[in-house]
């Protein structure tokens, strides 16, 4: 199951579905890095609301995805980490240090707007 990527003005929204295979995650890498250039996007939202677990592999993949998107000049916000997923991640010792997170899609978009406006003023 491929991850759908939606374009919303300057931003891209990728909604990750539950039970994503490793291959799907890697495909998402390529798709996002390419689409950020194609649409000249300023920011990317990765919505993980329906992801029922985040193991060390998923965390590492998301981290590298955020870094790749950053190298292409866009910011990423990960939103929708479920409470029990957050609990398990902390116990496992998994962190998303240096990566922006938001409660849900709405908050995530607001965060990207804010950081984008700040950049424009400079």
């Amino acid at each position, binding site marked *: 199951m491929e991850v759908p990527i939606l374009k919303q003005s300057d931003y891209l929204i990728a909604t990750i579905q539950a*039970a994503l*295979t*490793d*291959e799907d995650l890697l495909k998402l890498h390529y798709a996002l890095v390419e689409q950020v250039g194609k649409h000249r996007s300023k920011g990317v939202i990765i919505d993980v609301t329906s992801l*029922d*677990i*985040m*193991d*060390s*592999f998923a*965390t*590492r993949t998301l981290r590298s995805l955020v870094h790749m998107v950053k190298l292409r000049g866009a910011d990423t916000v990960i939103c929708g980490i*479920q*409470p*029990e*997923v957050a*609990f*398990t991640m902390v*116990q*496992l*010792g*998994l962190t998303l240090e240096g990566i922006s997170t938001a409660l849900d899609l709405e908050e995530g978009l607001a965060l990207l707007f804010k950081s984008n406006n700040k950049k424009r003023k400079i």
Partner: protein
Amino acid sequence: MEGGSTIVITSASDIIVARELGRKIGKELNFSLTDLTIIATVISELARNIIVFAKQGNIVIETIRQGKKVGIVITAIDKGPGIPDIFLAMQDGYSTGKGLGLGLPGVRRLVDEFEIFSETAKGTKVLAKKWLL
């Protein structure tokens, strides 16, 4: 022990099958949503270790009863290269694979009982128990 299910792990998609089965068995035992997430995560980490280090192996999910206590046991068995230094493998941040080095020590933190047996060139067996409180 009762109701054991074995899932053969040979590819990344088997990991999803295994963790969904673990979630289903856990749900039948009335584990909380947090515990179900923990069980699925433990299975995911152990199954991924099998693929990364041994290429193939088995995940066995069983229900256990001890007096009034009910729990779930997840066993990961492979005939891979084995772990030369278990002490080192259990340290946070130590990794020979491509992971974050949090797999095994992380799994130990997530469960109530944890055992690991490994012999170089023979294989590895990891046992993780979670009790329903």
